[in-house]
């Protein structure tokens, strides 16, 4: 034996030496080591500092239950991961790990002052203090608490890795590839079932990896499973959550164990739907609760055996065992057989199985029954232990450099609990075991409470002659919760386990109480004098172990975060320097700056072009729905506020849509193409919502109607040509449509061809100018746009964006649903009573308009506002008052919904919702801004060309 690595044994590959560093010191390990086993092999016992008291800590466990040995691993910019368990980090060449939560170093941590002051920092101390003086909380106390708390450092740079995700389906999902899980998989391998076997470790085998006697069985079994075409084995994959209807989330770790960074995803989220689930998650050994149980070198007996058998590493040269369970004896025997001195076996029980005693004797191990460890000597490592007979005060000291604890076993019922399966308390095991399933799932092996580890005594704390209120016997190692903290909580009236947990924070550390929950429960039960089942059970919630944000986000990263919908003309806009804005899922060109123009200059120029010549606008994002069938007009008549039945084919109509509660939800101009065919338009953001709402009424309220709805938003590219020259640009390109004002009046639609492709040509205007909206099949949108640009070049055709569109429509008093209305606005409020069919007996939302507060006077109404100073453009969202001299809180009577510089009028204009607004025409109101009060006069909403003559050129 050289150092702590045995000369032989274990599953590590001794032919592949690996160098890595921990806290700046370089060490050697072997392929197959974890960071924990490799450091142990180098004699490193000190791995970290605890959360609250900064006590030195070594390894407690050997797997993902480890609460103490948390490290940060960094591998270049952005690849910094805090809080990893050293027992679950595989070593690779060049691995760089650091300990956490210590300053200046792991050995000398100034934070350990908290340990000295521990008596003043019991559970809940912060509830009772830091209240005076009041101002100190924000500036002094809280920042100090925050700095002391936390474990590792968060990453500070963007993670360059990416993550993947997949859906998988199987007939049988087995979680845990220990002997029980492998047996279940073997059994199913001969069937036609699709089987997935998941295991969190780097190789399947679970407990079998710790038992050389099973290695040949394991090898053969894995070979058989690999050969079975219906079985998929996933290693390094943690099933972290069990969701409704046998839906299991798992994360596969793909690259973290590799020395070379590779281009593939770092981790992959598996979203598995299983016909049946078998949980074979095993059991986790419990620590014992006694003074000094957290000194580095005190660890779970099973963990010590794992290091010994699987990694060929001993945790000490002379180990002692403190047992309350038979399993620890076997772990101690394994150490003795491997040549490690076993200083003593101490068992709290007065009698144990004769066979164990005989084996101990044969191995020459001293045994003390009915004794307990009452103290552990050493600060950064075990130097010896003090042992006392139960109930007595005699003390004897035993020299050793490691102490193994065998406190019994806790079945891993985490996923079972996620699935809402019920649990039953087993007094003999001192643990909850699976009872009735809630999904198609069963537990096999140790997680079902059945195992061959022998039996034990269930005990909350070890007997000690010392004053229990003065010793630190740890329950939750990471969060530094001691038995006395739990007693304090009970004393202070926290009687439910949930309260005790929240008050003491036991079980709330990053291990989520895997080793502490049951001890905490037992201690609480003892303190309360109630049976465990009356104290309660803290529920397990996903995830089983912590999972990476990036993996849970899956593909949704960078460009794949969410689709940005672009029209077929978007590429042209981008090439021509457009500035974009995001509207719902779409991006739209907001303006087209030229030669260093700012937004205002560009928008003014674009507006001038539309008013004086012709502008071209990409309106493709407008929602479109084709409504077809003999009852199409009847259906629209029921949905919209205005009448639709009499609309003639070839004509268009503005439609206003309410929710059933009477508030405006959408609007748009729609056209009747044929008696049984309408082309509806909706707002950009409202398209999906409106279609769903219409389908709802159609399918569930009026299923008798023969009408069908089809989204055609993406079928058509829509190009708006607006301005006095619009017809001139269009005329030469259109075939089969007479564009003359007589034959093609405002609010009409014609079908024909443009540049050889079919078009639905609307004569509509959202600018007040002569206007057309050209619908062509989307594939031709960009080519048509370019053709129109060249055709209109001589006439000054100018592309304009959404900002100019907003100005132009505001000059005409046209509203934008969602800007001038906000989900609390009725047609009357918006001045749209003209669009409500007075004679219609019913339409969606009509009844709600008659509700008392909807029909009441004094509601906010949409009006125009003109600032006293024409150069001042109001801020959208600014509030309006009648009396600017009043004290705060002021009575606000309205707010500005739209506000622009109007190039056509040479002054600012605004739309606003104002209480009783239409009765206030000409009235002076005030807009108090932070620096001054602006005076505004209420006006009508149509600022430009109120007679509408420009439409008809």
């Amino acid at each position, binding site marked *: 034996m050289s150092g702590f690595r045995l000369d032989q044994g274990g599953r590590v590959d001794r032919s592949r030496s690996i160098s890595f560093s921990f806290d700046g010191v370089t060490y050697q390990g072997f392929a197959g080591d974890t960071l924990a086993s490799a450091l142990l092999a180098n004699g490193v016992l000190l791995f970290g500092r605890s*959360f609250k008291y900064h006590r030195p800590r070594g390894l407690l466990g050997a797997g993902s239950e480890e609460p103490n040995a948390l490290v940060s691993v960094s591998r270049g910019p952005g690849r910094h991961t805090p809080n990893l368990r050293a027992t679950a980090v595989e070593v690779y060449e060049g691995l760089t790990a650091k300990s956490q939560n210590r300053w200046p170093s792991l050995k000398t941590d100034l934070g350990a002052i908290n340990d000295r002051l521990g008596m003043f920092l019991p559970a809940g101390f912060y509830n*009772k203090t830091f209240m005076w003086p009041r101002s100190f909380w924000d500036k002094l106390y809280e920042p100090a608490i925050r700095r002391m708390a936390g474990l590792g450092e968060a990453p500070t740079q963007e993670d360059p890795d990416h993550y993947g995700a997949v859906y998988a389906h199987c007939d049988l999902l087995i979680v845990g590839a220990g002997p029980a899980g492998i047996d279940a998989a073997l059994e199913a391998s001969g069937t036609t079932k699709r089987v997935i076997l998941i295991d969190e470790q780097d190789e399947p085998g679970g407990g079998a990896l710790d038992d050389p006697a099973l290695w040949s069985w394991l090898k053969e079994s894995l070979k058989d499973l690999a050969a079975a075409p219906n079985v998929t084995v996933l290693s390094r994959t943690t099933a972290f959550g069990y969701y409704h209807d046998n839906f299991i989330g798992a994360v596969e770790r793909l690259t973290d164990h590799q020395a070379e960074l590779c281009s593939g995803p770092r981790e992959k989220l598996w979203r598995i739907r299983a016909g049946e689930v078998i949980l074979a998650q095993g059991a986790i050994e419990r620590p014992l609760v006694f003074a000094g149980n957290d000194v580095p070198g005190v660890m779970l007996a099973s963990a010590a055996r794992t290091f010994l058998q699987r990694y060929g590493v001993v945790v000490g040269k002379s180990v002692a065992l403190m047992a309350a369970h038979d399993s620890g004896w076997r772990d101690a025997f394994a150490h003795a057989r491997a040549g490690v001195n076993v200083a003593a076996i101490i068992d709290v029980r007065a009698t144990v199985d004769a066979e164990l005693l005989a084996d101990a004797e044969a191995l020459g191990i001293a045994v003390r029954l009915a004794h307990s460890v009452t103290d552990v000597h050493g600060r950064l490592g075990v130097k010896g232990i003090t042992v006392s007979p139960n109930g007595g005060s005699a003390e004897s000291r035993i020299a050793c450099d490691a102490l193994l604890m065998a406190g019994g076993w806790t079945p891993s019922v985490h996923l079972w609990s996620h699935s809402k399966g019920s649990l039953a308390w087993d007094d003999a095991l001192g643990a909850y075991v699976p009872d009735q399933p809630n999904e198609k799932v069963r537990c096999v092996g140790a997680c079902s409470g059945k195992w061959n580890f022998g039996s034990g005594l269930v005990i909350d704390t070890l007997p000690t002659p010392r004053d229990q*209120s003065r010793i630190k016997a740890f329950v939750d190692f990471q969060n530094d919760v001691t038995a006395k903290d739990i007693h304090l909580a009970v004393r202070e009236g926290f*009687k439910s386990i*949930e309260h005790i947990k929240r008050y003491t924070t036991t079980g709330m550390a990053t291990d989520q109480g895997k080793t502490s929950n049951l001890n905490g429960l037992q201690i609480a039960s003892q303190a309360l004098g109630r049976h465990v089942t009356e104290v309660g059970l803290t529920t397990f919630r996903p995830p089983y172990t912590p999972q990476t*944000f990036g993996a849970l986000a899956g593909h949704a990263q960078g460009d794949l975060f969410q689709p940005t919908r672009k029209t077929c003309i978007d590429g042209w806009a981008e090439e021509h320097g457009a500035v974009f804005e995001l*509207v*719902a899922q779409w991006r739209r060109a907001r303006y087209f700056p030229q030669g260093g123009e700012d937004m205002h200059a560009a928008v003014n120029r674009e507006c001038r072009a539309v008013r004086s010549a012709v502008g071209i606008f990409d309106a493709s994002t407008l929602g479109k729905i084709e409504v077809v069938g003999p009852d199409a007009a009847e259906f629209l008549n029921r949905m919209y506020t205005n009448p639709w039945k009499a609309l003639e084919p070839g004509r268009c109509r503005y439609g206003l849509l309410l929710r059933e509660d009477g508030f405006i939800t959408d609007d748009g101009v729609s056209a009747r193409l044929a008696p049984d065919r309408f082309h509806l338009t909706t707002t950009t953001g409202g398209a999906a919502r409106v279609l769903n709402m219409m389908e709802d009424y159609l399918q569930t309220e009026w299923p008798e109607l023969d009408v069908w709805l089809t989204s055609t938003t993406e079928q058509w590219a829509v190009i708006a040509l607006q301005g006095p020259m619009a017809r001139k640009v269009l005329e030469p390109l259109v075939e089969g449509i007479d564009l003359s004002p007589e034959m093609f009046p405002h609010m009409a639609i014609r079908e024909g061809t443009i540049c050889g492709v079919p078009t639905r040509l609307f004569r509509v205007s959202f600018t007040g100018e002569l206007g057309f909206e050209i619908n062509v099949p989307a594939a031709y949108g960009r080519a048509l746009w370019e053709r129109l640009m060249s055709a209109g070049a001589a006439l000054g055709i100018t592309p304009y964006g959404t900002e100019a569109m907003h100005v132009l429509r505001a000059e005409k008093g046209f509203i934008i649903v969602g800007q001038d209305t906000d989900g609390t606005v009725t047609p009357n409020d918006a001045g749209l009573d003209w669009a409500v069919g007075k004679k219609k007996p019913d339409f969606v939302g009509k009844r709600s308009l008659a509700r008392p507060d909807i029909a009441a006077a004094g509601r906010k109404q949409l009006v125009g506002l003109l600032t006293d100073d024409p150069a001042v453009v109001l801020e959208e969202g600014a509030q309006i008052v009648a009396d600017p001299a009043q004290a705060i809180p002021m009575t606000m009577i309205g707010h500005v919904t739209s506000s622009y510089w109007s190039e056509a009028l040479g002054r600012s204009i605004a739309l606003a919702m104002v209480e009783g607004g239409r009765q206030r025409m000409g009235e002076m109101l005030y807009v108090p801004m932070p620096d001054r009060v602006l005076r505004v006069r209420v006006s009508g909403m149509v600022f430009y060309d109120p007679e509408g003559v420009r439409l008809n050129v």
Partner: protein
Amino acid sequence: MTRFSAFSLFAKALGGHQSWPEQWPDASPKPAYDAIIVGAGGHGLGASYYLAKKYGITNVAVIEKGWLGGGNTGRNTTIIRSNYLYDESAHLYDHALKLWDGLSQELNYNTMYSKRGVMMLAHNVHDVQSFKRHIHANRLNGVDNEWLTAEQAKEYCPPLSISPNARHPVLGAALQRRGGTARHDTVAWGYARAAAALGVDIIQNCAVTGIRRGADGAVEGVETTRGFIASKRVGVSAAGHSSVIMQMAGLEFPLESYPLQALVSEPVKPVFPCVVMSNSVHAYMSQSDKGELVIGAGTDQYVSYSQRGALHIVEHTLAAICEIFPIFRRMRMLRTWGGIVDVTPDRSPILGKTPVSGLYVNCGWGTGGFKATPGAGDLLAYTMAKDEPHPINAPYNLDRFRTGRLIDEAAAAAVAH
């Protein structure tokens, strides 16, 4: 009541902390009370405290079917703010915010209210318009809320990505500096301890099974799993279970209960100084004093009492978090949990009298109830003591659904065009 202070902590420490009294006694029901509150969350316990403290009604029972503070009080992401748009909302939430300030001292219990600022991100022109509207309205209502440019937002919260190439770029933010967080459990515990000290009985593990009404229709008391308890005044503050309780009194309510999930990361050293909310990306986050990143996820789409949320909600939430804060992609989710939120049609609460005489209700807070805790408690107490609502909660009556005078903050931020 033993006064909590550094001094008392010191003194008790010398005695091995053996002499701390119970923070509140575990009471058994008496036959009758002057007032009963159903639901021992922060709101209900707060109401009992204010009934005793401000209105001298000390013969009060708070009855709870589980353990106190075990509902949404202990399951939320503890965001506190008051920068609401409508006057009614601003007055309601600012009333609460003013009570938060000084609550630790009033209760002699450190609720860890931390004014670290709540920042709401604007990602598009519509957000900007909407937030400006809020800011102007808040200013004239005396509620602090200020506009930050993207650069100022980044300065206030360094982990924020303000890349213009982001799918949802940050165009600016609205910041309420008085906003922040508190430690959720301590709010319930602090109220419980202070109320108990004034004589309030806190009765846990006692589920209401019926509401008894007299011949005149008025409330006479509640039937519980621990027997009938008489009282002429019953206030129901039962969050997600409000519908079920109101039905016991024969009342149908405009409420639906949805699962809401939240999650935390493993604790790390201080990295995130404030609260950030993004409605467009659907993410909100803060860092607890313990060091965990506390993240609110969305609600599932269906009515449920299961306290069990779906994985895809978590996927979408964390994708959103990583989009806004890309440095956190390697952080790890430690714990998720679910609550049941009761939602009204206008997503504002119902707080006041009911059609049944002697029966009062405080419900419908949806995802936003924690921030209102002291205010809701105070106003429920006022309403029960005076048998009429306080002017602040008067608009939050049940009748608004009939008249149409809804208080719909979410609709006011509606996205369309």
